C-alpha cells in the first residue's frame, strides 16, 4: 500500500517521502478528543455553561438557598422581635452622604406623628438623626437552627436606632428580616414537595411503562383523571382539611405532601414514555435474562439513562410548588404563623386598603417572582443540556 500503482510499467515507481499516517483524516483535534472522552455529565455541564441566563439563574438560586443556611445571621432583626414604637413604618433608605460629607451607609431616623383625621401614623425621615449601620455586630438574640443562642449579625441598626430597610408590618416587625426567614420555609417546601411527587411519579410511571398492557392502561386513565383536577381548589380543600390542632411543623409537612400529591402526573408520563422505549434496549433484556427483578431493572438500569431529564423536569416543577404554598398561605389556609413563609407574609397584604396605605407589605412579591423566574430559566437551561449530544 505504500506505492501508487500506475497503468503498467511506463510509470515510474514513486514513493512519497512524507511520513504516512493512515488515520489522518479521522484524527481528532484535542478539543474533540476531550469532548468524546468526557462523561455525559461533563458534557452536560459544558452545555449548561453556554446558556448564560440559566447560569445566572442558577447563581441566584444558589445564593437564595445558601442564605437559608444562615438566615439568622443575615437578617438584621430576629423573626419575632417587635418594635411597638414603629408600627407600619415605611422603608428607610440607605444613604452614604450626610450634608455633603461621606458617612458610610446609614439611615435617617424616623420622626412620627399621628394623623388624627385619617387615624394613621405618619413617618417622615428625620435628617438630624443619622444612624449608621453596623456591620458584623451584636444585635437581637436568636436561636441558630434551634441549636444554640447567638446574637451575631451581618448588619445591625445603630445602637438605639432602627434599620427597617423594607419597612415594618402591623406589629412593628422588620419586613426584610421576615422575608429572609421566610426564604427558608418557602424554598424548602418546594424541594420536599418534589421528593413526594418524584416518589409517586417514578413508581407509577415506571410500573406503567415497564409492564405496559392493561396495567399501563389503568394507570394512564388514572393519570388522566388526576390531571383533569384543577389543582388549586383541590389543594385548598386538602389543606383546609388539615386539623387545626396540628403543630405548625406537622402542618408544614402536611402541605408539602399535599403539594406533591397532585404534581406527579407529568413526571409519571415522562418516565413512562422513556421506559417504553428503553425497555426494548439490549441492556434491559440482558438484565432481565440475568434474572433481575423488575424493580432492579427499572431502578438500576433504566432510570439512570435519563436522570438528567428527570432533574430538568423537577427543576421546572419546583416553582409550581412554591407558588402553590404561597397561594395557600396567602389565602390563610396554608402555613400558619409563627411559621413564616413568603405566602404567610403576603397574607397581610390581602386587604387592598392595607396595601394602598402600606405598599411595602407587597414587597414579598419580589422574592417570589425572582425565584420562580430563576427556576424557570435554570430549568430551561437544564432541559437543553439534558440532551448534550443533540
Amino acid at each position, binding site marked *: 500500500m505504500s506505492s501508487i500503482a500506475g497503468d503498467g510499467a511506463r510509470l515510474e515507481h514513486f514513493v512519497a517521502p512524507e511520513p504516512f499516517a493512515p488515520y489522518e483524516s479521522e484524527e481528532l483535534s484535542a478539543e474533540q478528543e476531550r469532548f468524546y472522552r468526557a462523561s455525559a455529565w461533563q458534557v452536560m455541564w459544558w452545555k449548561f455553561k453556554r446558556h448564560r441566563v440559566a447560569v445566572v439563574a442558577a447563581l441566584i438560586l444558589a445564593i437564595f438557598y445558601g442564605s437559608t443556611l444562615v438566615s439568622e445571621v443575615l437578617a438584621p432583626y430576629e423573626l419575632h422581635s417587635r418594635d411597638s414604637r414603629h408600627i407600619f413604618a415605611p422603608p428607610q433608605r440607605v444613604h452614604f452622604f450626610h450634608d455633603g460629607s461621606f458617612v458610610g451607609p446609614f439611615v435617617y431616623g424616623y420622626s412620627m406623628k399621628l394623623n388624627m383625621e385619617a387615624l394613621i401614623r405618619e413617618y417622615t425621615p428625620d435628617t438630624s438623626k443619622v444612624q449608621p449601620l453596623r456591620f458584623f455586630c451584636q444585635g437581637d438574640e436568636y436561636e441558630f437552627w434551634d441549636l444554640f443562642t447567638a446574637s451575631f449579625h451581618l448588619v445591625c441598626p445603630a445602637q438605639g436606632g432602627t434599620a427597617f430597610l423594607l419597612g415594618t408590618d402591623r406589629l412593628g416587625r422588620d419586613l426584610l428580616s421576615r422575608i429572609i426567614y421566610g426564604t427558608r420555609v418557602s424554598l424548602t417546601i418546594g424541594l420536599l414537595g418534589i421528593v413526594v411527587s418524584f416518589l409517586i411519579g417514578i413508581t407509577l410511571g415506571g410500573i406503567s411503562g415497564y409492564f405496559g398492557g392493561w396495567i399501563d392502561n389503568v394507570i394512564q386513565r388514572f393519570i388522566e383523571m388526576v390531571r383533569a383536577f384543577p389543582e388549586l*381548589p383541590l389543594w385548598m380543600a386538602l389543606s383546609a382539611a388539615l386539623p387545626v390542632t396540628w403543630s405548625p411543623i406537622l402542618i408544614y409537612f402536611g402541605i408539602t405532601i399535599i403539594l406533591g400529591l397532585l404534581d406527579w402526573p407529568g413526571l409519571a408520563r415522562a418516565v413512562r414514555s422513556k421506559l417504553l422505549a428503553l425497555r426494548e434496549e439490549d441492556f434491559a433484556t440482558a438484565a432481565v435474562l440475568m434474572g433481575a427483578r423488575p424493580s432492579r431493572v427499572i431502578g438500576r438500569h433504566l432510570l439512570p439513562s435519563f436522570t438528567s431529564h428527570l432533574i430538568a423536569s423537577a427543576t421546572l416543577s419546583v416553582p409550581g410548588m412554591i407558588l402553590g404554598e404561597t397561594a395557600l398561605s396567602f389565602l390563610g389556609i396554608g402555613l400558619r404563623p409563627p411559621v413564616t413563609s413568603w405566602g404567610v407574609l403576603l397574607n397581610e397584604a390581602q386587604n387592598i386598603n392595607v396595601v394602598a396605605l402600606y405598599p411595602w407589605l407587597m414587597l414579598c412579591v419580589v422574592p417570589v417572582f425572582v425565584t420562580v423566574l430563576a427556576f424557570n430559566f435554570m430549568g430551561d437551561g437544564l432541559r437543553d443540556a439534558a440532551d448534550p449530544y443533540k
Partner: protein
Amino acid sequence: MLNYTIHRILIMIPTLLMISLVTFTVIKLPPGDFLSNQIAELQSQGDKQALEKAEFLREQYGLDKPFIEQYATWVGIWPGARGYSGLIQGDWGWSFEYDLPVKDVVGDRLMLSFILNFTTILFTWAVAFPIGVYTAVRQYSWADHSLTFLGYVGLATPNFLFALVLMYFANVQFGLSIGGIMEPQYLGQSWSWDKALSVANHLWIPVIVIGTSGTAGMIRRLRANLLDELQKQYVVTAKAKGMPPLRRLIKYPLRMSLNPFIADIGNLLPSVISGSAIVAVVLSLQTSGPMLLDALQSQDQYLAGSFLMFLSLLAAIGMFISDLLLAALDPRIRLSGGVAK
C-alpha cells in the same frame, strides 16, 4: 367520528365517578362535620327547637350513615332519607351555614365562573395565536425577543400576585376599585341586558390577570411547534416552487402546528380554573372561588363539594371537547380510537 365520540363518552363516566369520589372523600376528610359541631353547640345552649332541626337535617342527609352510603346518596345512586336525590337528579344538597339549599346559595355564581373561565380561554387563544405565529415566522427579530421575554415574565408571575399589584396600581394611580365582577346593585338580580353589560365591563381585568400565564405558555409551545414545521422539507419545496409566503405559511405548517394548540386546552383548563379560583378571592369576584374558600373553612361540606365538583366537571368537559376537536382535526387519532395525546 361517532365511534370515537362514543368511546370518549364511555371513558368519561368512570372519570366522573372517580372525580366525585375523590371530591367527596376530600370534603369528608376533616374530622367531625358542620352539623355535629353545631349540635354540640346547641346542646350546650339548650336551644331545643334549633337542636331538633339540626338533628332532622342530620338524618335527612344521612350524616350518621357509613361513608360509602353517604357518598352514594350524594351522587344519587342510592336512596337516602328523601329517596333518590343527588347530583344526578340535580339536587346539590343543603348548605348548613346559609341554611338554604346549595342551589339557592350558589345562585348564578356557577354561571359567572363558567363565563369567566370560558372568556379567559378565548382570550388566551386570541392573544397567543397571532403572537405565537408572528414570533415563529420572525424568529430572533427584536419583536420575537421582547415578546418571548414578556412571555417568560407572564409565565413566572403568579396570577394572584399580579392581581394584587394591578389592584394596587389601579387604586393608587387612577383611584379605581377594580374588584367585583359586576356593579353591586346587580348582585342577586336576575339576568338582564344591563347586568350582562356590567359583567362585561368588569370581566376584562380578571380575564387578563388569569389569562397571562396560560397565554405565555401557549405562545411558547405554538412558536416551538411552528419553528419545527417551518424547517421541514415540504416548506422548502413550497418556497422553491414559488408559493407566496402567506399562503405557504397557512396552507401546511400552520395546520400542522395547530394540533398541539388544541390538545393544549386539556392542560390549560385546569390551570385556568385554578387561577380563576384564587384570583376571584383577591379581586373579590362573585364567582365560585371565594365561596368555596369560605365553605371549606367552615366545613360546609355540600356547598364545598358542589363547587369542587363543578370546577372538576368544567375541566373534564373542557378536556372532552378538546379531544373531540382534536379528533375532528386529526384523522390519526379518530381512526385509532385511542385517547388523544
